[in-house]
């Protein structure tokens, strides 16, 4: 029983759970952003949020499938992390200006 036999599964488990959490976080930020954009595009507040909510699960599905099909694990983390940051920051920026 090598140390490798413990670290490798632990690393994989962390990657899987972590990436899932990151994908969820990214999708939640995208939902917030989508709602704001839909409202600015002319929809009522309620409709905008409802539309964004329905899309949220599609976002999550696509992000999960995409994230776990990357050749290198690092790329998945970087890209999903970057997307999260963008989706989280954009509403704050936009509302700061408006």
């Amino acid at each position, binding site marked *: 029983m090598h140390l490798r036999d413990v670290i490798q599964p632990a690393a994989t488990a962390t990657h899987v759970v972590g990436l899932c959490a990151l994908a969820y976080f990214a999708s939640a930020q995208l939902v917030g952003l989508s*709602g704001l954009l839909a409202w600015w595009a002319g929809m*009522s*507040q309620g*409709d905008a949020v409802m539309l964004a909510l329905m899309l949220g699960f599609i976002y999550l599905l696509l992000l999960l*499938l995409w994230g776990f099909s990357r050749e290198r694990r690092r790329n998945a983390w970087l890209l999903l992390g970057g997307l999260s940051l963008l989706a989280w920051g954009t509403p704050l920026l936009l509302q700061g200006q408006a």
Partner: protein
Amino acid sequence: MGELHTWAGVLLGVLLFAVFWTGSLSVFDKEIDRWMMPSTRLHWDDSMQRPSLDRDIRPLLEQRAANAPVWTIILPLERTPFLTLTYGSEESRKSSRDLFHPITLEPLAKPLTLGASGFIYPFHHNLTLRYKNIGAWLVGIAGMAMLCLLVSGVVIHRKLFSEFFTLRLHRAFGRSTLDVHNVAGVALLPFHLLITLSGLIVAFAIYYPDAPQHTYREQVQSGVSAERAFLGEALGRIRLRAAKQPGELAPLEPMVTKAEQYWGPGSVYLLRVNNPKDANGNVLLRRTSHSSVTKDIDNFRFANVSGEVMGRFQASATVNTWNFIAGLHYIQFRHDALRWLYFLGGLGGCVVIATGLFFWTQARRKKQQRHGHLGVSLLDALSIAGVCGVILATLAFLLANRWLPMQEQLFGLGRARVEILSFYALWLVASAHAVWRVMRDQRLGYLHAWREQCTAIALLAVLAVLANWLTTGDHLLATLRSGNGPVAGTDLCLLAAAALALLAAHKLRRRVPQEETLEVAHA
């Protein structure tokens, strides 16, 4: 590495099975309720005259809950053929409910059970683990995993579509298990996709609670909760404050008549009187949506004292898209054929998951044969506990419902609580039995466990049918003759389940000598 993958798959599979099993039963939850609550085995159809709100129902409310902050009146419907009166607060979870005969308005004997709609259905969407929505999150994770499996499965197994129709049932058990999994999985693919996605979308409030934050920034800045504002605007859920001044409640029938001018006669089924004795109280009316998939959330709001229309909420097209998706999942509209197909489709999903679990652990067994059996055995035990265990638990729930004496308190607990404890108790016993069996015989113990639990399922299912007969007198022939669909249907399904379980047990008995031969050949 592979072990981790295997364990994750089995844990997820067991969770999914429980969700699909309770979900399938929930399609007929109101029918199972009739079985579990004999005092409600009544008849109601649209042609019957519903009780008068002011003459008949109002006095009952005044009698029982004159000072309650909320009165809820649910008029009799086909699948719930009785009058329901609930009194309590929208805030606190404590509210009491009384059922009445739909014509004579006699109080019905207290059911003293949560029934399928009160336990099995909530178990389906939140595992009855309400603390911090942990149960709902687990179900959501399982659902999302299912979606990923479905979509990636189709992509990965594109070539499988050439084996679309191949069901090699006469071949070795392992091969035929996989074939059943594949064919059932493909046949039910559109259904499973719809159900899984719609199930997640329905519960958006749990999974994306902060969605309204950015869009409702103005409201947040003026001190209103974004969520409250969103629910009010999109779903018509408004809470109006009491004036703390006394007010006399106007007659309710004219309110219903007014609403039905727009909605159609006989369409109102629910009235909620908020703050009945308050000057600022209001009455909310909701309508049925039997003939559309879209769940109808429109409402009329009337002022208590004047009886005038305060407001009318109509869901927008976007919100009705959500209501359509929700309606797809809930299947509360009238369509017997679809309801049965949903039920069978859900059970088909259980078969897909169970065969998947079986094949998954079988494949792992072949790989880990040389490295010791403990891990494999425990995986088997987990699968058995997950599949047979939850079925046995459900049967225990039904049996307890029939056999427990009709007293409010039993062993110091509410009767309904004892029924639920029976559910978990038998699940625990089944799990222990599975573990004991696989530990005792690490090579073939799992087969014995599967077989014995299948036999137990058959036995308990038949006992349940007998229990219904002995405790209510509504045996199968009587209910078939009198056209009592819900009770007859439940009994018939129990008998069908018993037959299938016996068939499975029989096939598993023949498998043991096959397995022993294979073991010898490999050794």
